């Protein structure tokens, strides 16, 4: 079942906690955490920092975020084969990715996009969506 679209109000409600959590994980000032800053290119985050941020967000929001959940969410209803082939995001996959990461400026999407480079697109807003999605899943019946 697909979830209703995440609203701006929902994002702004979780953003302050996410900004504090990210600043603590990255060792930077909370004011450096803007919704649309690239975590890798703007804040020098590495893969261990993503692991750290997810681990901290799980505890801060008392949610469970399975590893690789961002890409799974971004894939939406597409199958893995529809989303990627030979390590590259397919055309339909890229359209889906652009829709999910709507906060990321169009010029930051490269063609072709390697699956391993998807985290380069992530911003704090991406993590806001991740948290909201996990909160909704936790509240969902059954």
């Amino acid at each position, binding site marked *: 079942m697909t979830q209703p679209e995440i609203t701006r109000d929902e994002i702004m409600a979780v953003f302050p906690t996410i900004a504090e959590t990210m600043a603590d994980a990255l060792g930077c000032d909370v004011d450096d955490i803007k919704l649309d800053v690239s975590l890798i290119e703007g804040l020098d985050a590495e893969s*261990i*920092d993503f*692991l*750290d941020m997810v*681990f901290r967000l799980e*505890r801060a929001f008392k949610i*469970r975020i399975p*590893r*690789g959940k961002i890409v799974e969410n971004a894939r939406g209803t597409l199958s893995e084969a529809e989303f990627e082939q030979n390590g590259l995001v397919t055309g339909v996959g890229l359209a889906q990715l652009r829709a999910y990461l709507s906060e990321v400026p169009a010029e930051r999407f490269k063609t072709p996009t390697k699956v391993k480079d998807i985290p380069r697109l992530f911003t704090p807003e991406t993590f806001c969506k991740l948290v909201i999605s996990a909160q909704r899943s936790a509240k969902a019946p059954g």
Partner: protein
Amino acid sequence: MADHFAAFSFVDRITDFTPGVRARGQFAVPAALPAFRSCLVAEAVGQLAAWVAMAQVNFRGRPVAALASETRFHGDVAPGAVLGLAVEIDSCDDEAVAYSGCATSDDALAIELLDCLGPMLPAAEFDSPEALAARFELLRGRGAPPGRFDGVPMPGIVRGAGVPGESLAAVLHVPAMAPFFADHFPRCPVFPATLLLDAQIGLALQLAAEAPDLPAGTQPAPVRITHVKMRSFIPPGEVLALDAQRAPTGGGTGQIMLRARAGDKTVSTARLEYAPRGVA
């Protein structure tokens, strides 16, 4: 292979085990050692968690040190003591293990590890999965013979420049060869993160000891280390630049930001909180 499961292994026996959930164990600290440092007590707790995690994934993966939110130092462990080890697993799968744990000595709390996370990597890259599985059965059964551990040659640090009471730098030469590399790990020697932290804590305490606000008749002692983040493996022979930056909090207490770099690459970061302790 005499050093395998000996030169850097700190679980003798797993006495209580709920798969994927919790475990208790013990380690007899050899009486002949000159000391048993807190970093090795923390290592013992982490190793018990690693056994639970490896068993949970049928020894396909093994966790490596990555994140430790908080480690609280409560007391020293004397040679000859028997460490009681306990871990609670928050989550464990093929990707990572999240856990907390503690170690006791003579029923007194020695160390607590809170909210640690270790990514799981293919076990076969580090050790023989079959040997690990067999060792686990031994630990779950009659236990390993005590007294295997001969001590660790703690790498020295060469003090560098600094501003008294504010910052201090040093160089750590990771040995190219040491018995513990045969155990950590047999197929991929890695300098243990806990030994790096020990060196960094030593540097931080040197810095704190020279702070002008340290009360007379006291020495700084570690209270807790937080935000430990290991960013990459450290191979044998690596040369690390360590630096410590102090942020005083008053009354002789303070926080020290720790960083280790290999060339331009930051390999680890952490924050140490310390407090003055009376000198006997």
